[in-house]
């Protein structure tokens, strides 16, 4: 039994030498990233459950979907969630997953000859890694905008149960996106330094798995927090 040679030695990274025997024939890091994603699922399950448990139990406003009148001042605070804006940022994040798929494909097919202009564009790993990173950063920009506007409207992490659970949940997700963007930038740095080739596809593959996971989690958050009243 020998490991299929789908991955080669990567200079300047910690990839194990190709001769290392593995039971499943896949790289250890691929197994580990799945275990990591399993663990992350429980992390977000805990965060999302807490948000749902505390939904509708805040003593004071603002609230996500309902308006609230401050009994002491008579101020009316409108529902705070801005669904059209967040839908846009969700779309951007979804698109980033598509770019990530293209980036992985580009790295895997690096050595294949490119004949048409379309093939050359599709085969440009830097382009798609950039696009993914930019889409991720755009999502983070939207989140920064959302957070600041909430603070202006009177909702901070200390305001009420909704504020605490909302900011913590979406903030944790945002931190995951940030880590993903840094990961992508690191891959880009490697690409610029020595070029990513098909032998590096595992490096991009595990980054992509992580990125898609973070994306899927956002779909769940978007549905449960924003769409369901």
């Amino acid at each position, binding site marked *: 039994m020998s490991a299929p040679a789908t991955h080669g030695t990567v200079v300047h990274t910690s990839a194990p030498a190709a001769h290392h025997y593995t039971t499943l024939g896949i790289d250890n890091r691929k197994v580990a990233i799945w*275990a990591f994603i399993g663990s992350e699922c429980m992390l977000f399950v805990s965060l999302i459950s807490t948000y749902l448990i505390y939904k509708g139990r805040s003593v004071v406003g603002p609230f996500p979907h309902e308006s609230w009148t401050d009994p002491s001042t008579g101020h009316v605070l409108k529902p705070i969630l801005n669904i059209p804006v967040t839908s846009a940022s969700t779309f951007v994040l979804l698109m980033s997953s598509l770019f990530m798929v293209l980036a992985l494909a580009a790295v895997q097919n690096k050595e294949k000859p490119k004949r048409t202009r379309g093939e050359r564009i599709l085969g440009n790993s830097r382009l798609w890694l950039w696009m993914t990173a930019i889409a991720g950063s755009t999502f983070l920009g939207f989140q920064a905008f959302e957070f600041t506007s909430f603070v202006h409207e009177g909702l901070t992490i200390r305001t009420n149960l909704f504020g605490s659970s909302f900011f913590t949940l979406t903030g944790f997700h945002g931190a995951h996106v940030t880590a993903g963007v840094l990961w992508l930038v690191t891959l880009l740095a490697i690409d610029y330094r020595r070029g990513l080739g098909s032998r590096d596809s595992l490096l991009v593959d595990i980054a992509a798995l992580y990125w898609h996971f973070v994306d899927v989690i956002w779909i769940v958050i978007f549905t449960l927090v924003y769409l369901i009243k």
Partner: protein
Amino acid sequence: MATTAISTPAYGGEYSGEQSGLWSWLSTVDHKRIGILYLYTALFFFMFGGVEAIIMRAQLGAPNQHLVSAEFYNQLFTMHGTTMIFLAIMPLSAAFFNFLIPLQIGARDVAFPRLNAFSYWVYLFGGIFITVPILFAVAPNGGWFGYAPLTTKPYSPGINIDFWVIGLQILGVSSLAAAFNFLTTIINLRAPGMTLMRMPMFTWMAFVVQILLVLAFPVITIALVFLLFDRFFGTNFYNTVSAGADPLLWQHLFWIFGHPEVYILVLPAFGLVSEVLPTYSKKPLFGYPVMVYSGILIAALGFGVWAHHMFAVGMGPIADTFFGLTTMLIAIPTGVKIFNWIATMAQGAIRYTTSMLFGIGLVGLFTIGGISGIMHASPPADLQQTDTYFIVAHFHYVLFGGSIMGIFAGIYHYFPKITGRLLDERLGKIHFWLTFIAMNLTFFPMHFSGMLGMPRRIYTYDSGQGWDLFNAMSSAGAMIFPIAMLIFIYNFFKSRKSGEIAGSNPWGAGTLEWSIPSPPPDYNFARIPTVTSRYPLWEGKEVDHESARINSQEGKTAAELGIVMPYNTIKPLFVALGLIIMFCGLMTSPFLIALGAGLMVFSLYSWLLSPLEPEHH
């Protein structure tokens, strides 16, 4: 002593070549040496936690005593629980995971050697972080379960709880990193022919434990993040004062982690005795597949029983019924394990070695903990038992009678593999009997003091309550433990230096780790073995014996054999250091946070961008 050792090593526990000196230990990525580091550190914390317990027992030896203040007593019981769970039993198990998993599955190392070093250093620093405060009487004082809102700022304004919240976060990082590592190792680094159903039972239980860790630790992480945010940033997760928070949120999150944690503590010990009992009975483990499935079932059910810690909170009859019944169900796979162990010994040729005595001790004592466990699986009955000394008795039969007995069985069994020398059996047996007597004298009377109405976590009690005798007995028993431990420590260091040379397989055991020299060379297996059976050395085919013959030879270095070994590196230690500095900064200054984060990120990149091992030609 029966021995199938092929040759006898000339060295007792020294690692040859460049592998010595302080620097080699700081920069090691060898799973065996990391295992040894875990073993020493965890034994230290085990004794530290023991001293805490002895002070508590001294205080409770008679009514209305004032050896320590109420406040310090609360710190003692909080830290006793925290220390024993997170700094002693889990890392003792981790010591065996580290040392044994690669050897049992025929691997050269774990999947991520540097991550493994990182796990250890984070554990060490985290352990120091959470332990040092008690020396200054500012230790965590909210109980190991840290119930909100008592642990929130309005009710615990001091820094005590901060140490606990941050310390547990740090230790969680270590446990999770180790879990990913071992999980990958067991899934992906098994030698050819080492199918899942041929894995030694210890590795199987370790496998189940890693899955539990991976799924349970994120939940406590989030629960602690909420508490951390509440305490440091003024969020409202447990703010019952002005935000209308529900204190049961903490309890649910904590016990969703906390109950699987019990199995995280006890399954490794189950795995160890499942190696020990067959070896000294000269018989394969009885009902291996059922032992595997029952382990999996215990773990799976373990995620559906958490609220049995909360029968007194008034969850309503439906929830009580559900959690009561699922808890009872766990008794079935647990019972099967007990019966299968007894059946393993039946018709065998039992040798009363120290390891075997501890193993038998586990079967006998854990049974008591199991039976008392069923008694509070019944929610109405639990209403009289919960938060009394009956519970203290129960979980000490589970965690001392189960985990610690199993771990000592493992230490006596594997000491020769780790050091190349045997522990003294005569001292070992004294250690066993003293421990056995102390254990029962301390914890059995607690069943009575509990049923006679004595609450837990009280620093003092009045006279005339009918508890004096049982408390005096418990306290007397507790004073025997240090004698037993001193004998063990003496034996440990004496045997380490001058114990009888062990040879590769002093006990005539059947699994792969006994086919290589003791202590094993840094590369473990000169040739990755091919496995055809659960006990390759007992019932293996020619190819097993062939592997064993090659691997039992010694004296060759990795270079001579053409084996590529990973570089030693200090970087994981620095990443761990950065992490700790960052967390310390949370309690002191933002400058430290930045410094720690900077050190961490820099070392991490440096680690990730440097190769693990020399390039293979």
